[in-house]
């Protein structure tokens, strides 16, 4: 649904995007993670037709965003990192104006506005001034505005910034509901735990390029049935040197860390490969005290990728 190939974009000689590539399938809730200045917002602005790219291609729903910008605008809903509202309008007037701007008229407009009010939970505040809404409500209102024309793709740039924990939970729930409706969502965020909970995949971006995590993945599968590479932490009784020798001799395993009585091992393969390593250690006379699968959470992966790259 979203295809980005070798995208380049510079501002006054500074490279914001440097050959970034991304593929997001239909119906996915896809996360984009990277430190400040990595190029996330630039990518979002190019995808939503606000900025032209210098080179590369970007397509949404098969439409080139540079050439067929108007058709792309019908397909997408864009929520900027700092969304604005018209404080002097009522909630309904705000939605009606944007419904007008998306060429929804008459009964279609009324239905779209009513649906947006219902979706955002602001139906009982439709006559209130936007100024009277809390920050979280304003964020819901802007998201509701983004959904007025039933977009097939949502581009959300740091949507959780500034929200309190309850509002973040509500946002996560709403995004899950939208994904269930078949909307493709590309979301950038620094709130990693939010992305981990809801995203199907996450792409890593650093200095405008695709970044890879410790396991060599530029796209982290969060909903894959079984990860092909797993990390195990092994604790042994006594000296770990014989265990290290065995680990290095078993095919499909790689020693990542070792200390006096502890090792971190990467195992490539299915469960039988894991069982084979444990069996080999025990048969080889190693007293195994602990043999634990260590799931790298997203924050850990993020730290491993970007720790060394922060300028």
């Amino acid at each position, binding site marked *: 649904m979203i295809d980005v190939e070798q995208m380049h974009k510079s*501002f006054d000689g500074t490279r914001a995007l440097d050959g970034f590539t991304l593929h997001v399938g239909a119906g996915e809730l896809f996360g984009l993670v990277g430190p400040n200045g990595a190029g996330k917002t630039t990518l979002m*602005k190019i995808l*939503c*037709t*606000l*900025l032209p790219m210098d080179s590369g291609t970007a397509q949404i729903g098969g439409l080139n965003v540079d050439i067929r910008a*108007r058709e792309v*605008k*019908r397909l*997408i809903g*864009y929520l*900027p990192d*700092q*969304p*604005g*509202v*018209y*404080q*002097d*309008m009522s909630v309904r*007037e705000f939605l009606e*104006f*944007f419904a*007008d*701007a*998306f*060429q929804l008229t008459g009964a279609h407009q009324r239905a779209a506005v009513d649906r947006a009010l219902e979706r955002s939970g602001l139906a009982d505040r439709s006559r209130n001034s936007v100024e009277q809404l809390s920050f979280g409500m304003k964020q819901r209102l*802007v998201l509701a*505005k983004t959904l007025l024309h039933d977009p097939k793709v949502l581009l959300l740039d740091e949507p959780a910034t500034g929200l309190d924990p309850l509002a973040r939970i509500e946002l996560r729930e709403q995004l899950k509901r939208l994904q269930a409706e078949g909307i493709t969502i590309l979301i950038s965020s620094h709130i990693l735990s939010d992305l981990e909970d809801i995203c199907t995949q996450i792409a890593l971006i650093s200095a405008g390029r695709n970044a890879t995590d410790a396991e060599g993945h530029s796209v982290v599968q969060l909903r894959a049935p079984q990860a092909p590479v797993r990390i195990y932490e092994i604790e042994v009784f006594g000296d770990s040197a014989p265990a290290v020798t065995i680990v290095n001799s078993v095919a499909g395993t790689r020693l990542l860390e070792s200390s006096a009585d502890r090792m971190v091992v990467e195992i490539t393969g299915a469960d039988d490969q894991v069982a084979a390593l444990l069996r080999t250690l025990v048969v080889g006379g190693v007293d195994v005290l602990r043999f634990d699968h260590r799931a790298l959470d997203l924050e850990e992966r993020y730290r491993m990728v970007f720790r060394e790259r922060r300028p």
Partner: protein
Amino acid sequence: MNPMIRKELRQRMRERRGWLLPSLYLVVLGAVVAFAYFVTTTDRGQSSVQGSTVGVVLFLTLAYSQLALLLLLAPIFSAGSITIEKEQRTLAGLLTSLLTSGQIWWGKFVSSLLFVLLLLVTSLPVLSMAFAFGGIGPWEIFSATLTTVIILACVSAIGLYCSSAFQRSVHATAVSYAIVIAISVVTAIVFFVRLTMYESAHRPTTSHDWYDIPLNIRAPMYVNPFFFLTASFAPPKQLYPAWITCACVFITLGALAVALTLRNLRRRVDL
């Protein structure tokens, strides 16, 4: 109807200045007319003054002071028009909707100009007083009003350009005023200084015809709104070349401002 126009008008009329400015404008204009009437009738002695003379004086006073006031007010409405969208971060929402850059510009332009035209219309009863005294025909009122509208449209377009070029309303408004001062005051100063130098270098002729002055000295005045207004008082058959030249200059300036504003809106680098 363009959704931008509806939105802009709704927002403008909700602002306090929506009713405050027309009220102040009429008070100032009324005071100017009363002062002009008082000065005219007192200087010449009330019994000997001709009604048509009073009418002409009132009309000219009104036309020039109205233009001066509207030149001061026009940048307020136009220069903050796009910057306010940037300041409240709503411009991205507009540009990613199905509204074109042209529609956004047109909505901003019409709403800015309509408010200034509202002020112009509210002054018509005051202007009709001059009409009632005589000495002024419908043509003079029509040509002066048309000229004022062309000038205000150009100044509004320039204000919108400044609004698209700057991030902050205060900067855009300041530059708009600088441009208004440049075309209204600086051009006149340049003209008079150069004219004085020319006349001191050449023996002044008895003729005071405008077209006897070399074009390079006259040129700055063709961009001066007060000269443009003065040229509009000529009879219909004498509008060429002064009024027509001024109209072409102002329309060209306005068109250039429109083109640059649309380019800025399409570039969108400052969002």
